[in-house]
């Protein structure tokens, strides 16, 4: 039982903190967001050189053999600087899926390309009307000779418009909400029948709605066993949730630092507003919430890779619940304590708030995950 980062993780943490502070400032970030793709290729290459893009891939595929704790270190720093590049989409979600569920050929084909920064992938899983129900898939993949024909509509595809390839979940059997009967396919974004609507998001990221109309995919591009993709999807999303929890913690720490700085300097009634006890206690509560969220982000990272499903489900959902609630509180109060300035686009606090808000919505909000924990109480006995 110990909570210490390894020496390597500590070094990684230090260098990322430097990077974010020195090379990912407010203005530069603004420029990246307003650029065409919302991604800075130089920054992305920089990440590749630092080894970040293949951190958790096996060494055989140009990775460093890292784990979810390493991802936590990365994401916490990305949260601190509100890094908008598609690390979650490409590395954690898509890369993680290929790593955990792909066959050797797929790994050899894809992972080195992600690690080098050349390839961007995205996971196209959620569908309209599914809300946060992970097994709700209506997109179909119909076997047609040695090919599959994929048809359906995907939503909330993180950085889907920037990806060269998509990992698409589709129903190969079963009913709309069934966990069994799901399969995963690798689809080129440029394939015939793929239509991508790319949107900016309020927090400077990108998301896409993607429709598939009889898109032909060769059987080689099936990832894992047919009909049995659900566990791999769930695990990828859980790894994504753990990464988001860490990112939220970084953003909360940044929000607390920015707010503390603001209330120490902003004066009203002749004194810094940080002298008002109500604001002091508010900051204390923001600090408490952040500390607890940090603990839960560690728990999420520790459990995200576990194959003990009940224990993982409880840990991940407890973490997303409390982190989501903390993100809401810290985000709202950070803005509130910034007063009028807090609701302008000029303040970093406003951007932290937007990201914290939308992190809560990604992969299930606090309500959704609390329900997971709650319903888990019906089946456990301890």
């Amino acid at each position, binding site marked *: 039982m110990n909570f210490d980062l390894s020496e390597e993780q500590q070094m990684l943490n230090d260098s990322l903190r430097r990077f974010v502070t020195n090379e990912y400032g407010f203005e530069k970030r603004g420029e990246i967001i307003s650029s065409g793709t919302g991604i800075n290729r130089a920054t992305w290459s920089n990440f590749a050189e630092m080894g970040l893009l293949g951190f958790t891939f096996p060494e055989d595929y140009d990775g460093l053999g890292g784990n979810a704790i390493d991802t936590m270190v990365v994401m916490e720093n990305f949260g601190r600087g509100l890094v908008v590049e598609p690390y979650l989409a490409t590395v954690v979600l898509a890369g993680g899926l290929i790593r955990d569920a792909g066959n050797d050929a797929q790994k050899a084909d894809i992972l080195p390309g992600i690690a080098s920064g050349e390839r961007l992938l995205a996971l196209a899983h*959620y569908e*309209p*009307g*599914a*809300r*946060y*129900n992970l097994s*709700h898939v209506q997109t179909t993949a119909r076997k047609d000779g040695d090919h599959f024909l994929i048809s359906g509509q995907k*939503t*909330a595809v993180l950085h889907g418009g920037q990806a060269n390839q998509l990992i698409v979940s589709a129903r190969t059997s079963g009913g*709309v*909400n069934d966990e069994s009967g799901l399969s995963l396919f690798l689809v080129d974004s440029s394939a015939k029948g793929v239509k991508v*609507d790319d*949107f*900016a*998001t*309020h*927090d400077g*990221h990108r*998301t896409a*709605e993607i429709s598939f109309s009889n898109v032909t995919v060769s059987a080689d591009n099936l990832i894992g066993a047919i009909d049995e993709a659900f566990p791999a999807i769930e695990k990828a999303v859980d790894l994504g949730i753990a990464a988001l929890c860490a990112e939220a913690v970084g953003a909360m720490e940044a929000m607390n630092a920015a707010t503390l700085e603001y209330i120490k300097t902003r*004066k*009203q*009634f*002749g004194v810094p507003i940080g002298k*008002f006890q*109500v*604001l002091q206690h508010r900051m204390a509560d923001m600090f408490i919430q952040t500390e607890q969220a940090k603990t839960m982000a560690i728990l999420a990272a520790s459990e995200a890779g576990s194959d003990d499903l009940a224990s993982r489900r409880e840990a991940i959902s407890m973490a997303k619940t409390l982190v989501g609630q903390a993100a809401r509180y810290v985000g*709202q109060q950070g*803005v*509130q304590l910034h*007063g*009028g300035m*807090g*609701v*302008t*686009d*000029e*303040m970093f606090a*406003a*951007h932290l*708030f*937007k990201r914290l*808000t*939308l992190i809560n*919505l*990604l*992969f299930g*909000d606090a*309500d*959704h995950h*609390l*329900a997971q924990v709650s319903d888990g109480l019906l089946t456990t006995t301890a």
Partner: protein
Amino acid sequence: MDLNYTPEQEAFRAEVRQFLEDNLPDDIRERVQKRLRPDKAMTERWQKILFDKGWGASTWPKEFGGTGWDPIQQIIFEEECALAGAPRQLDFGLRMVAPVIMTFGNDEQKQRFLPGIVSGEDWWCQGYSEPGAGSDLASLRTSAKREGDHYIVNGQKTWTTLGQHADWIFCLVRTSNEGKPQQGISFLLIDMNTPGIEVRPIIMLDGEHEINEVYFDNVKVPAENLIGEENQGWTYAKFLLGHERTGLANVGQWKAMMKRLKEVARQEQDGQRPLIENTRFRDRLAQLDAELRALELTVLRVLTDKRGPGPQASILKIRGTEIGQQLFEMLMEAGGQDASAHISEALELDYNGPRAGSMEATPSAGDYFNMRKLSIFGGSNEIQRNIISQLVLGL
């Protein structure tokens, strides 16, 4: 004690409803109900329609061109307008500067300014806050020096909502540095077309242009635009705060929004069921519904109280803004992950392009972000609690 509306009040409600059905243009209704980008022309058109009916100023006495309605009628009118999808009328003229002019202005000022407000010809904005004077409003520094029959105004105002459209601004300015900060403040009306005024946009966190900074560089304002007495402006400003009763809680708007939220919860799907069947979402909706009901009745209780609202109006401000913010938060949450997308073009009436998720999801996150202002502007909720603890509780 009787919580039912009288038959006369119900008849009045029916009359308002019918009028709205007959006269609220469809494009305006659509724009409001879809929560699209607000539009100056829309506000002006609607004000003109109301004005032509004689309903341009629901809170004014008849002698100034108002309706002469009692508070309950005002509430009914507001509620029906909101439920029908009418745009909010512009408060700055109708509910803020007008009562000050009526109460403290001279006859000439009343004749000169009130007609343009009720007809909607003049767009007003507010010049109170300054970069260094937010919650501590009395520390404002924008100066007005008397020179002959003019004041020369220098300084900067900020958080000026919709100032980019304004013909006039009502300002608190410093005319004296003697005594307590509150004592040297005057209330001045300034034509926005006067040379030396510059309006610079502040972009809000939702990416929209709604508020502004207003700079005054040797702006020459006729002394006849001074309201009441020089250095007495703080008194008029406080009067204004006390006067603003019904608008604070915003009940009509929130009732319309609650209705919408319930519809959205029935439309949005949560897997194989409508979102309303999700117990957790529905419970929070129910909680908010109960709180809104309590707010609505509390407003009516305060309004019909012969002693008037007094500082207890701070309750309405606090609860009204908290409930409003939660309504927008739930609308966003109803959109789920699709609420993330920021599709600026989709806030225009003629947008037909792609969107993420439902029509309702499109404006939801931006609205939620924008509405954080509610607990900050107009006297932050912390300031409101200070007011309650000092003026009501005597602490």
